[in-house]
């Protein structure tokens, strides 16, 4: 009998505490970048967004085990993301034009 609770592909368990450390360090880096470091507003915006997406990906890939799931399951989560980008872009276009 297959265990229904197991992730769908066999894998070595990630080092969760190391990922926690990455998330912690990146959160501190974000706060420092936002309020302490003398960088231009545009660069700050780009770096903060990169850090946020990086952190979100760490959570999704390792804590939600998306990295170890089958593609069919990953697609359920991935498909809305381009739709989300289209939604935001369309609203921005409407605002601009």
């Amino acid at each position: 009998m297959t265990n229904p609770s197991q992730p769908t592909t066999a894998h070595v368990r990630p080092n969760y505490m190391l990922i926690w450390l990455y998330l912690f360090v990146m959160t501190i880096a974000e706060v420092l970048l936002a309020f302490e470091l003398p960088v231009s507003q545009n660069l700050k915006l780009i770096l903060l967004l990169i850090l946020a997406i990086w952190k979100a990906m760490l959570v999704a890939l390792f804590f939600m085990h998306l990295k170890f799931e089958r593609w069919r399951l990953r697609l359920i989560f991935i498909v809305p993301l381009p739709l989300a980008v289209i939604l935001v872009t369309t609203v921005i276009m409407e605002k601009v034009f």
Partner: protein
Amino acid sequence: MQTTTMTDAMRPPVPAEPGAGVYSNKLGMWVFLASDVMFFTALIGSYIVLRFGMGSSWARPAAVLNVPLTGLNTFLLICSSVSMVKAYAAIADGKKYFLRKVPGKTLQDGGLKFWLLITIICGAGFVGVQVFEYIKLVGHGFTPSGYREGSLLAEHALADPVKYGAGVAGMYGSTFFTMTGFHGFHVTCGVISMLYLYFTKVLPEKYSPQDYRGIEVIGLYWHFVDLVWIILFTIVYLI
């Protein structure tokens, strides 16, 4: 009369869904999360459009909000995500206990009961800090309709209208409270669900390494809530 109790070994197998190859509870949670992505996208997208459409007339977040406190709250939520995944790993390894001594080690080994309790405490702590933040903000005059007349923030906004975004305070208040409020509602639902599982399934030791679907499904929800907050914290508090 002799009665028998259904043990873990006697539990009937749960068939996986033929399409995605996972059991239906997990598939259902992933589909729900996909729909929740669109829900939060609508909120965050609207905020981005309104915020950047206003240019520099939007309030500086650090002038109105308590960023260090929320930074601490973000850390609390990240810790709860780690404890959740540790709870998942513990039951996968068959560790149903609270704490157990490990020969040769000072620290005791945490089991499902310990890590899930930590997650619940951190989650409840997050909600508590958010409620405290709301009380303080409303006390200072920041409400969903903008700066309350005669309040401290309204006076500051009169003195420095650019820094406090005096012209669009209503829009700022409504978007801030809507986004953080809906996220807080998600966290509250997660804490209540975990409490329910803790008392009905975890404490009576109904989960086993053969079947711990509830822990995995609530874990997916909880990590998603953490993921959304990571994005919200950056967009609302730091940019």
